[in-house]
C-alpha cells in the first residue's frame, strides 16, 4: 500500500451525499431550448460559426476555439438556432455573455461520429482532437484539457493523478460516474497517460465512496492497466488538485509554479471520461452528469445536455416550495446563480436547491478576534486573518505579501471563523482588484511608450521636412538669383505658395465630404430597410444605438 501524505488544515462539513446516491443516473429529457454560452472554458472566447435560422445537429461545432488555450463548443441537440447573442449566464456577476440558443427539433440527431484510434495519431493530433471536441476540466476549473497534456521539457513526468475525491458536500456526480462508467474513465486516463508518459498513475478517491473505489479497481483490472486506485481520507478540500497531489505524492505545488514543473499533473475523472467519449466514440462534450440535490424531494444524478435551463432541470428533482435559489457547485465553493433560467454549462457539476432552512442566513459579522482558527483550517497554510485585515483596508501590496494569490478560495477559513467574517469574499475582492490594477498599469505603460514613440517620430518627421524645405529653399533661391540676373525690372506677381494651394484643395474636398456625409446621415434614417437581412438589421440598429448613445449623452459633441 502506498504511503499517503497529509495536508494541513481542512475541515469536515457534513457530507450530505447519501440522498442523491440512491437512484442510478438518469438521462434528463430534452429541454424546451438550450442556451449554450460560447465561453465555457478558461482562455479565448470561441467565435460563433452559426447564425440565427441555421439548422444544427447534435455535436455540431457552433463555436470555433480562439487561440491554443480555448476549446470549441458544440450544439448539444439537433434543432434550429434561434438566437446568437448575450444571455444571462451562470456567473456570480449576473452579467450576460454571448450564447447560441437552439430550439430542439426533438430528434436529437447526431452528426456523423468518427471514432479514432488515438494510438495511430501523433500526440499533437490527439491534443488538437480534444480541443476540437471541447474537452475541458470538468472538476470546476474548466481549463482546456489539451493544454495540460504537455509535460514540462526539463522535468520528467513522474505521477499523473486522477481526481475522484469529490470532497465538496452534496456533490455525487463523480461518484456515480465512477460507479457506473468506470471503464471509460480508466480508458480516458489511459489516453492521458500515453500523452504524458508518467511513471505512475494514481487514482485518488475519498474513502467515503467505497463503491466507487471498488468499481474503479475492477475497471483497472478489467482493462489491464497498472493504475493504482487509492482511498484517501475524507476531509475537505482533499479534492482540490493541489491537496490531492499532496496527499498522493507528497509534492506541494505553490501558486507560482505549474504542477508539471514538479513532474505531476492532475485530471478529474469526468474529464477523463469525456476525453474517452471524444476519442473512442467521436462525441464532443455536449452533456455531463449533474447532481440535483438540496431542498428537493427527489435528489438524483442526471445526464444533462449543456445549455439546459436550470429551472427545467431542477423540476425533475421536485424542489420543495420554499426553494429560493439555486446553488451551482457545492455549498463551499459554489455560488447562487443570478436567476433560475440560466443554462447548465460544462462547469455545472451540481445544482443545490437553496432554502433558508437548509442554509441558514449568516449571523451578523463580528470583528476578528485573531483566534487563528482560520489559519489552522487553511489547507494552504496561509494567514487568512492577516490577509483579511489588509484587504479590508484595501492595502493590496500587503495582502499580496501575505500570499493572497496562493489562496484557492476553498472557504475553509470562512467555515470555521467564529466571527463569521466572509474571508474568502475579501480575498476574491483583493485578487480581482490587484489584477485590474496590474492591467491598468500595463495599459498605461503601453500608452506611454506608444506616446513617446509617436513624439519621437513626429520630431523626426519635422526635422526631415525642415531639412527638405531648407534644401528646396536653397535651390529656389539660387534659381531666383539666376532669374533676377536675367530679368531686368518687372516685379513678379505674388503667386500663392504651393502649400497654400494644397490646403485649399484639401479643405474643399473635406467640405464636400462633410456635406455628403450629412446627406448620408439624413438618408440613413429614411432609408428603406425592409429588404435587409436580419443580420444587417441588427447591425444597423446597433450602430444607430451607439450613435444615439454617444450624441445623446455627451454634451460636448452635441453642440
Amino acid at each position: 500500500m502506498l504511503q499517503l501524505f497529509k495536508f494541513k488544515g481542512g475541515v469536515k462539513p457534513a457530507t450530505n451525499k447519501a440522498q442523491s446516491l440512491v437512484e442510478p443516473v438518469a438521462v434528463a429529457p430534452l429541454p424546451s431550448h438550450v442556451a449554450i454560452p460560447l465561453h465555457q472554458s478558461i482562455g479565448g472566447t470561441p467565435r460563433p460559426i452559426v447564425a440565427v435560422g441555421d439548422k444544427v445537429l447534435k455535436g455540431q461545432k457552433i463555436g470555433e476555439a480562439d487561440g491554443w488555450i480555448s476549446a470549441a463548443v458544440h450544439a448539444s441537440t439537433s434543432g434550429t438556432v434561434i438566437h446568437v447573442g448575450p444571455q444571462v449566464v451562470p456567473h456570480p456577476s449576473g452579467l450576460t455573455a454571448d450564447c447560441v440558443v437552439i430550439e430542439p427539433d426533438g430528434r436529437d440527431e447526431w452528426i456523423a461520429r468518427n471514432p479514432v484510434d488515438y494510438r495511430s495519431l501523433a500526440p499533437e493530433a490527439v491534443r488538437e482532437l480534444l480541443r476540437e471536441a471541447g474537452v475541458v476540466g470538468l472538476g470546476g476549473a474548466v481549463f482546456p484539457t489539451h493544454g495540460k497534456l504537455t509535460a514540462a521539457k526539463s522535468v520528467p513526468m513522474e505521477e499523473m493523478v486522477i481526481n475522484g475525491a469529490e470532497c465538496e458536500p452534496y456533490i455525487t456526480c463523480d461518484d456515480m460516474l465512477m460507479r457506473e462508467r468506470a471503464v471509460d474513465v480508466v480508458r480516458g486516463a489511459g489516453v492521458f497517460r500515453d500523452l504524458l508518459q508518467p511513471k505512475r498513475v494514481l487514482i485518488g478517491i475519498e474513502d467515503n465512496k467505497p463503491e466507487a473505489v471498488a468499481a474503479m479497481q475492477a475497471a483497472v483490472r478489467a482493462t489491464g492497466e497498472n493504475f493504482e486506485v487509492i482511498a484517501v481520507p475524507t476531509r475537505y478540500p482533499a479534492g482540490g488538485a493541489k491537496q490531492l497531489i499532496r496527499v498522493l505524492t507528497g509534492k506541494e505545488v505553490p501558486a507560482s509554479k505549474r504542477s508539471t514543473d514538479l513532474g505531476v499533473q492532475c485530471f478529474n475523472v469526468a474529464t477523463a471520461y469525456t476525453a474517452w467519449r471524444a476519442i473512442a466514440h467521436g462525441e464532443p462534450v455536449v452533456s455531463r452528469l449533474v447532481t440535483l440535490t438540496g431542498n428537493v424531494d427527489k435528489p438524483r444524478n442526471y445526464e444533462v445536455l449543456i445549455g439546459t435551463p436550470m429551472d427545467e432541470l431542477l423540476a425533475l428533482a421536485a424542489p420543495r416550495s420554499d426553494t429560493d435559489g439555486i446553488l451551482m457547485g457545492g455549498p463551499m465553493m459554489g455560488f447562487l446563480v443570478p436567476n433560475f433560467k440560466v443554462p447548465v454549462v460544462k462547469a455545472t457539476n451540481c445544482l443545490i436547491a437553496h432554502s433558508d432552512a437548509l442554509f441558514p442566513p449568516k449571523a451578523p459579522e463580528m470583528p476578528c478576534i485573531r483566534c487563528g482558527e482560520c489559519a489552522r483550517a487553511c489547507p494552504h497554510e496561509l494567514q487568512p486573518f492577516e490577509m483579511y485585515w489588509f484587504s479590508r483596508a484595501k492595502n493590496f501590496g500587503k495582502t499580496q505579501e501575505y500570499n493572497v494569490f496562493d489562496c484557492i478560495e476553498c472557504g475553509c477559513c470562512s467555515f470555521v471563523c467564529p466571527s463569521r467574517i466572509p474571508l474568502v469574499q475579501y480575498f476574491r475582492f483583493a485578487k480581482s482588484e490587484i489584477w485590474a490594477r496590474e492591467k491598468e498599469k500595463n495599459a498605461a505603460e503601453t500608452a506611454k511608450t506608444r506616446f513617446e514613440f509617436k513624439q519621437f517620430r513626429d520630431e523626426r518627421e519635422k526635422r526631415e521636412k525642415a531639412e527638405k524645405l531648407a534644401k528646396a529653399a536653397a535651390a529656389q533661391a539660387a534659381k531666383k538669383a539666376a532669374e533676377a540676373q536675367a530679368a531686368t525690372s518687372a516685379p513678379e506677381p505674388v503667386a500663392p505658395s504651393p502649400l497654400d494651394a494644397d490646403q485649399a484643395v484639401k479643405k474643399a474636398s473635406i467640405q464636400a465630404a462633410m456635406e455628403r456625409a450629412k446627406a448620408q446621415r439624413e438618408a440613413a434614417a429614411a432609408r428603406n430597410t425592409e429588404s435587409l437581412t436580419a443580420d444587417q438589421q441588427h447591425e444597423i440598429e446597433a450602430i444607430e444605438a451607439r450613435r444615439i448613445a454617444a450624441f445623446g449623452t455627451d454634451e460636448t459633441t452635441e453642440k
Partner: protein
Amino acid sequence: MDFSTPPYLLKNASVTRVMAQVLLALVPAIAVYAWLIGPAILIQIALATMTALVAETLMLKVRNRPLALFLTDGSAVVTGWLIALVFPPLAPWWLVVVGTLFAIVVAKHLYGGLGQNPFNPAMIAFAVCIVSFPAFMSQWPNQALHLGLLDQFQVIFGLMPRLDALTAATPLDALKTALKLDEAGIGVPALLANRNVYGSFAGHGWEWIALSYLVGGLWMWQRKIITWQVPTGFLGALFLISGALWLYHPDRFASPLFHLFAGGSMLGAFFIATDPVSGATTPRGKLIFGAGAGLLTYLIRVFGGYPDGVAFAVLLLNICVPLIDLYTQPPIFGMKDGK
C-alpha cells in the same frame, strides 16, 4: 440579489460560544476559590461582571454599535471575571469597579473594541490598580481568620472596619519579604515548611485553585479553544528558569513546583496569556510569546518590586506581538524549502 457569499455552510462557531467555554473553564477554580478562601470572590465576580456589562453597554452606545450583538459576545464578562480573579478578594468594592471600568472603557473600547485592543484589558486593570492603589492591592485575606459571607460582604462594602488582622500578603510576597528580611539565613526550605502560609507545595489554599486552573486550561485545550503553544511556552520557561536558579541555590530560590503553582502562574498561562486578541498568532510566535511571558513573570516576581509578575510580563509581551508575528510567519503550502 442578496449579498450572500460562499461558503454557504458554516461551522456552528461564534465568539459567544468561545467566550462561554472560557467562562465554563473558570468555574471549577472559582468554586475551589470560594470554598477554600471564602465566598468574597463571588461578590467580586458579581461586581466585576455587572460593571463590565454596564461599561460595555455605555461604550457601545457611545460608539454606535449594535448592542445585542456585542453584549452577548461574552468578552466583557470574561474580562470582568479575570479581573475579579486577579484582585484581592477582600479589596473594597470600588477597586474592582474602577479596574473593570478602566479595562472596558480605556483598554478595550478606546482602542476600537472587540478584537482591536493591543493589550489584555484585565491585565491593564491590574497594572493600573497596583500602581495607583498598591496598599489595597496587596491586602490578601488572612486565612487564619474565617469570616462568614456577611462579614466579607461588609468588609468589601466598607460597612465594617478594615482591620489589619484581616489581611496578609500572598505566599509569593510573604516569601520574598521573608527572604529580604532574613539575615540569619534560614533559607527557603525552612520558610516553606510553614504549612499555614505555604500549604503543601505552593501556598495554603492557593495551590488547589491553581490546580483547578490547570484542569480548566487543559479542558479548553482539549476543546480547541486554546492551543498548546502559549501555556507550554509560559510554564516551560517558568519551570526552566526557576529550576536553574533553584539548583544553583536552593536556599535562596524556591522550587519550580512552587513557582508553577504560586501566584498567577496557572491563571496567566492558560487564561491570560492565551487571550487571542492581544497575543501572538503564529504557532512559533505563540511559543515565543508564552516563553517570554513566563520568563518575565519569574524575573519580576523574584527580583522585582511587585508581588507577582504575570500582569506586567503579559503587557510587555503584548507590545512585542507585531514584531513576533512578523518574524515567525510560517512558510506556506509549497514554499517550505526556502524558496
